[in-house]
């Protein structure tokens, strides 16, 4: 019967339905399945299912994402953001690979294969030795280098305070010069032929 204020619409979700769809893994490990894999096994699976886009060493091919490298580049002009250099939580790596990879065949990897692939990506980033067995038990033995690299949105303090109020309307600057032109780069698609 509908409780007061409710409409009585929908039906109760069954446990096996929730299990089928609820796969998210939180940073504290909630949702992490039982299983294990190491980098040596992971290397073979990676070569078979991942390397055609991400490269044999997770270094990325062409425009496809690089999963390894980029250590200590985040304050450089062109930072290389990878699982090793950037991602704060290893749970995200497991969650995303299990849910959405391989690209075009998402959700096809058994849990042990996901553990092995994650181990191989960690190994490619020099974050574990080749004999390290990644499992739900050892998962948090791995330190993510950029775990403390994130701050919660602070625009209110750093930006809004200085960009609020009546702006200048007349004689706001002495000289205005063109400093950069898009036509010099010339990377805009030809709009006659583009689709």
């Amino acid at each position: 019967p509908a409780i007061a204020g409710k409409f009585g619409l929908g039906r109760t979700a069954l446990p096996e339905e929730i299990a089928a769809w609820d796969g998210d893994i939180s940073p504290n490990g909630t949702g992490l399945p039982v299983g294990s894999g190491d980098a040596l096994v992971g290397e073979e699976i990676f070569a078979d299912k991942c390397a055609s886009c991400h490269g044999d060493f997770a270094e990325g091919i062409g425009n496809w994402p690089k999963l390894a490298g980029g250590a200590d580049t985040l304050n450089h002009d062109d930072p290389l953001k990878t699982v090793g250099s950037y991602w704060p939580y290893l749970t995200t790596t497991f969650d995303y690979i299990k849910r959405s990879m391989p690209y075009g065949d998402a959700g096809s990897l058994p849990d042990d294969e996901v553990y092995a692939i994650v181990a191989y990506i960690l190994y490619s980033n020099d974050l574990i030795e080749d004999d390290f067995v990644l499992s739900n038990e050892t998962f948090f033995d791995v330190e993510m280098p950029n775990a403390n690299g994130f701050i919660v949105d602070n625009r209110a303090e750093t930006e809004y305070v200085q960009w609020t109020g009546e702006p200048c309307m007349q004689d706001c600057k002495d000289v205005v010069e063109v400093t950069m032109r898009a036509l010099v780069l010339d990377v805009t698609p030809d709009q006659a032929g583009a689709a």
Partner: protein
Amino acid sequence: MSDKDNELVSSRRAFLGGAVAAGAGALTTGAAKAQTADPLITEIQPWAQGFGDGVDAVRYGLPTEHEGDVIRRNVEWLTADTVSSINFTPIHALDGTITPQGCAFERHHSGAIDLKKDDYRLMINGLVDTPLVFSYADLERFPRENHVYFCECAANTGMEWAGAQLNGAQFTHGMIHNMEYTGVPLRTLLEEAGLDTTGDLSGKWVFVEGADASSNGRSIPMEKALDDVLVAFKANGEALRKEHGYPVRLVVPGWEGNMWVKWIRRIEVMDGPVESREETSKYTDTLEDGTSRKWTWEMDAKSVVTSPSPQAPIKHGTGPLVITGLAWSGRGAITRVDVSKDGGKNWETARLAKPGEKMALTRFYLDTDWDGSEMMLQSRAMDDTGYVQPTKTQLREVRGLNSIYHNNCIQTWLVRSNGEAENVEVS
């Protein structure tokens, strides 16, 4: 595009190329006098003599072929392939505020999926009294609301952080659309599942994910979820387009487009954020010192002149000129837009077509008289929090060059005396 469309686009470009130079100096004051009678008037034209199409010719119409260049466009080099990619709304050619769905931008992470209403299921689980499954038909039985909101990709204008790069408002500012949504407040669905046993809601989150392979899972704080988030199934009066989440998407007013989860299949009430890929690896904003902001949800006040602009040059010569554009803010309503013709030295306050609505596109006009001299056109939006749209220099001083997302800087178009316009940066 069909060959026919290509021809149309090409002929329009040829027209532009030929007409731009000839146009200058045509009009100054008052109406010009024709030298010879116009055959379009003096001769009976075929459309004035015979028949047009019957009412059964087109069951669901597309724009006339003469508007064949008002289309979404992609930029091939931006992404590795087209199914995790972006295209751009032709904002340079549109007016008003409502984006036609058929040319409203797309952003997918594993393509636009085909999901029938009969196959659609929405699950609510986690810290609720009763986990629920809804069919599409169930959703249509809840009380509905209508709201107009903009959806702006967090990466809109992102290619312009390092400098002026793409030549056209469509490419620099076209990861945006603005529609009238019909749907059910997320609050209603959460209350249907019951939040009584959840305890203190202030620290709680919802995790939302789509039915597609990418899932696009994102965490949203409960305060926002209970405020104005909509589970929408209609846009601009009709069902969502496939590429916009048919049959059901999330609408998250004012917040970055990535969180507007399409083909939404599950909403989980949780104790904390999932810190999914789309809120750690992506949609985090790296500052100059190498630390990165996370949870930069709101899209700040922003504007752009849509015409004249590189894809919409002045073709009519001197005299009356309508300078027009769009302004919007994720933190409230647009209250004012200023326009500068000299790169920000001096500003005039433009006219808003209608009072700004919260978290929706606002159209502005500056009706002016162009003397044919070069202009450096800028627009500067203000919202009802008092926030003033910053320059790119101001943004860079706080963030550096590597933020990727949330570039709401003032845009400059250099309009030459021949009417052509170019994307530039100015000092």
